[in-house]
């Protein structure tokens, strides 16, 4: 029983990070209907910004950790806006496939720039927040795991508030439903899209820092694997749907952890994750919480 609960906790803290990255995929998809593959590399940049800020602020302090988190989110929000402005905006109106390929190109560019500037060697990530381990009835809980789950919940709530409760959020939803009609009623589409990228990239940066806190070794290719998993999570939950992304992330994290902890099946963990995705899509083609929209002719 202790082992089961320990694995459940391991799974939830892993899933929370997947969820945070998945949010960025899902938001951009919701508004622009394309997968921003560079997202997982913005995640990597976020971790590196956190690494450099971490050298300036004292370790093991709450405010130092929050400063690194806020700084990385700000830098990556700006990076997201720049990427959109330079790489995606010139292609607006072009076939989705062109934008998709550009996104893969931006992703490779960021990975290789990362190797060039940061070096390929993994670096140790500083302990930004005060770190301790609690033992509850034989279950080991590290404070970093709690930080991950807490920050994810707060950001999830903040995101939901922005999208559902603010003027810019209403504009985002309007652009998502019909960009042309939205611009006819006076919404500046460029601003809305830039804002979406800023928000999504800030989430990626937060994800990068939380990931690095839990797995304190960062390298320029660190985004590839979690990015892929988060993409699967976003599709699993219903791409374009924010609670769906969170649910998909948690589900994937928990399933992966239990498969990893099993005796003979751990080699198949990715196969099982993707089999789960196929199974869900067979019965719910739009994902767990996604709603199926008919293609308008």
């Amino acid at each position, binding site marked *: 029983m202790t082992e089961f609960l320990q694995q459940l906790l391991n799974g939830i803290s892993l899933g929370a990070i997947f969820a945070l990255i998945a949010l960025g995929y899902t938001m951009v998809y919701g508004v622009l209907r394309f997968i921003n593959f560079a997202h997982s590399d913005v995640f990597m940049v976020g971790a590196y910004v956190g690494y450099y800020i971490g050298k300036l602020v004292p370790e093991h302090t709450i405010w130092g950790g929050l400063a690194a988190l806020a700084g990385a989110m700000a830098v990556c929000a700006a990076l997201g806006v720049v990427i959109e402005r330079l790489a995606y905006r010139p292609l607006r109106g072009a076939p989705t496939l062109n934008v998709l390929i550009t996104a893969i190109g931006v992703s490779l560019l960021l990975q290789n720039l990362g190797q060039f500037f940061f070096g390929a060697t993994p*670096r140790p990530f500083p302990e930004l927040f005060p770190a301790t381990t609690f033992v509850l009835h034989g279950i*080991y809980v590290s404070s970093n795991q709690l930080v991950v789950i807490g920050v994810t919940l707060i950001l999830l709530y903040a995101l939901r508030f922005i999208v559902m409760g603010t003027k810019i959020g209403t504009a985002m939803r309007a652009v998502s439903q019909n960009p042309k009609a939205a611009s006819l009623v006076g919404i500046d589409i460029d601003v809305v899209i830039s804002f979406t990228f800023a928000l999504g990239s800030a989430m990626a940066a937060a994800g990068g820092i939380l*990931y690095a806190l839990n797995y304190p070794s960062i390298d320029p290719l660190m985004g590839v694997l979690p990015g892929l998993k988060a993409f699967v999570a976003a599709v699993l939950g219903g791409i374009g749907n924010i609670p769906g992304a969170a649910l998909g992330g948690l589900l994937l994290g928990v399933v992966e952890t239990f498969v990893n902890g099993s005796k003979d099946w*751990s080699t198949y963990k990715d196969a099982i994750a993707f089999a789960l995705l196929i199974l869900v899509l067979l019965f719910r083609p739009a994902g767990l919480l996604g709603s199926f929209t008919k293609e308008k002719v």
Partner: protein
Amino acid sequence: MRLLPATCLAFLLALNLAAEDTIKLGEVASLTGKQASFGQTNHRGAVFAVEELNAAGGVLGHKLELVTEDTRSLQGEAATSVKKLITRDKVTAVLSETGSTAALEAAPLCQSAGVPMVSAVGTNPRITEAGSYIFRACFIDPFQGTVLAKFAANTLKVRRVGLLVSSGNAYSVGLAKYFRTDFSTAGGAIVAEQKYADGDKDFRAQLTAIKAAGPDAIFATGDYSESALICKQARELGLTVPIFGGDTWDSPALLEIGGKAVEGGYFSAHFSPESKDPAVQGFVQRFRQRWGTTPDTGTSLGYDAVMLVADALRRAGSTEGHKLRDALATTKDFAGVTGRITIDAQRNASKSAVIFTVKDGKFVYVESVAP
């Protein structure tokens, strides 16, 4: 602009002349990608060896030229690189400065082309089984597995060991295989064996399962980048038993990433910069002057691989493939910086291993184990 073709021609001729004048050594290294940290240190050792040899006048009256190809740590790239080196660059010998997985791709190609290959750090036994032209400068996984099994049973005095294996990594799988056999023979038991994929960062699930099996020690067979995180997460999960690993642990990054969690860990290694051997001390000093850092295992093996080839070239008196091969095969008591190297009948380097422990953030020598 009319001058341009002529200039080009002159330039090409000059290149060609320069090329004919040197002995080309092909080098396959993982300079970028996820194994870049290993590839780059190995490469630095090879570069340093070539620089030193050339400064001393070269080999057989020719300067050496290192032709380097990057595998980008991708599967299949090593094979492409070796083909390029053999057919386009017509290299005299190939140095494989990569892990076992890439060296296994390169070996059969060198064998069929009759170009001698020396694997600097590939410890998987199957590499040299590719044929009579394939050699290595390091010891092999069975030896390392045996050394660690002996060490666990006799020095650590543990009976129940949990294994963590990186299932896509030939090195990790090999180490685990030989450890399992020898440790069982020594009366120990493998109480849990968990697998992960190369590049994973979350090992809590596997460690939780191992913890439930109640081991006395854990053998983390993978690379340091994974093993450092394994140590950290094990300590966070309340696992306090000793954790030990193979020679890939031998990197300062293990200490930087692992911090307090790797204290009290053990690993087997090829080389100790703290060795009292004057040859090693001279090498460490010259290397520090040139690069500003202390050479690690990868660097020293990369260096020794080049020196083994240079030594064989001198004894062969020729750059012909079969003569060089015969000279490499008869290498005996060659004084490398990683120990006295004798090439055995299986074309593996027979030499001793050292065991290190981590103490106060430093690698401390524990004991030497002879083959």
